[in-house]
């Protein structure tokens, strides 16, 4: 299960904790959509994510691309080892851009 907590504002930070898999899709989309409404930029903090798979990664990629297409920059930070490993394996930086996942 994935838990989200949000520090609101014009540049909200969404803290993610738990497991990002197929089961988290609706909850994560809803949380990000709410936080991103009218935002200048959105930060996703992965410091609490213990598990992620290709479904969780796909949801993250889709959210990033959707927000960027709406003109809202996204930054992902504090990737844990499991998240970093899967993102590297799936070359996620190439999909979402270095602005989202800086080196």
């Amino acid at each position, binding site marked *: *299960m994935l838990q989200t907590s949000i520090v609101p504002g014009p540049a909200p930070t969404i803290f993610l904790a738990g*497991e990002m*898999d*197929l*089961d988290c*899709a609706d909850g994560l989309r809803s949380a990000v959509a709410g936080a991103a409404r009218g935002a200048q930029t959105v930060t996703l903090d992965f410091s609490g994510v213990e*598990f992620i*798979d*290709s*479904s969780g*990664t*796909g*949801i993250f*990629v*889709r959210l990033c691309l959707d927000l960027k297409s709406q003109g809202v920059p996204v930054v992902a930070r504090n990737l844990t080892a*499991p998240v970093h490993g*899967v993102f590297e*394996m*799936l070359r996620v930086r190439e999909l979402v851009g270095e602005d989202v996942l800086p080196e």
Partner: protein
Amino acid sequence: MRTVDEMRPDESEAQVAPHGSEAQVAPDDGPLPCSLHVYRYRRAGGRIEAVVGVFDAGLPEDDLIAQADEALERATFMCYAVAQADDFVEDELCFVPCGEHCEILSIHTNGWERHYGDHRRSLIEILSDLAAAVACGRLRLLDSDEIAIEAAAGDEMLHLAIDKPRALSKVRRAVDARLAAEGLDPALRRTTLLPISEAVTNMLLHGGGSGELTLRRLPDRLRAVVCDRGPGLNFLNWIEPPDVSGQASMGYGFKIITENLDVVGLHTRPAGTTLLLDRIL
């Protein structure tokens, strides 16, 4: 057999009762768009037999045998394009020498036509990835008899019926407890658990929405058997978004599965798919 939801929260360490059923084989119904076909050529027999799907009578068997002989002779991975009467463009076949026999892989488009984008390229990339995994020995393509034997090998450690994404977390905990009991260190447990979770997710998304996971102990390895009765591996699912997540997988789940495990066995057909996920100890 019980579903995951029938397990107690503290039961991840507990033995799940034997169920008496193994990965079962149902009859083929018919092809799907972009289904995998695998043929096997043995020099000794001098003919080609179907491993996954049925041998297409429209294929030039003599040409395929010549290509397979050459692949075996040169011990080289080879590709060959062949036109199909019902296909919008030529099908690509990959010839992968495997010791005394040659595996021949093809994604048959079954007359499916693209509507947008360059899906053809994606299908060829998928086929190449599959063939490369076979060539490296990480992927074994098994026929009905082989999968029935191998899916029942060893001693059962855990068996679960799974029918909803909400169960994924519990499934991972139950499997992780077994892996820990077998003495796998945390890093190896992580790289074993991830591909098992991927396979179960694929089963939920593309395998008819439900299926079974069995963890088995063989003398030299742990084996997870993930079995569904869905419509079989359809590669359109890899390039077009499924309904549930709205996100095309592009075969990422498969990449995670083959790159994190020692050996993967696959049997797929229109009546279901079975995966064997092996961690050698």
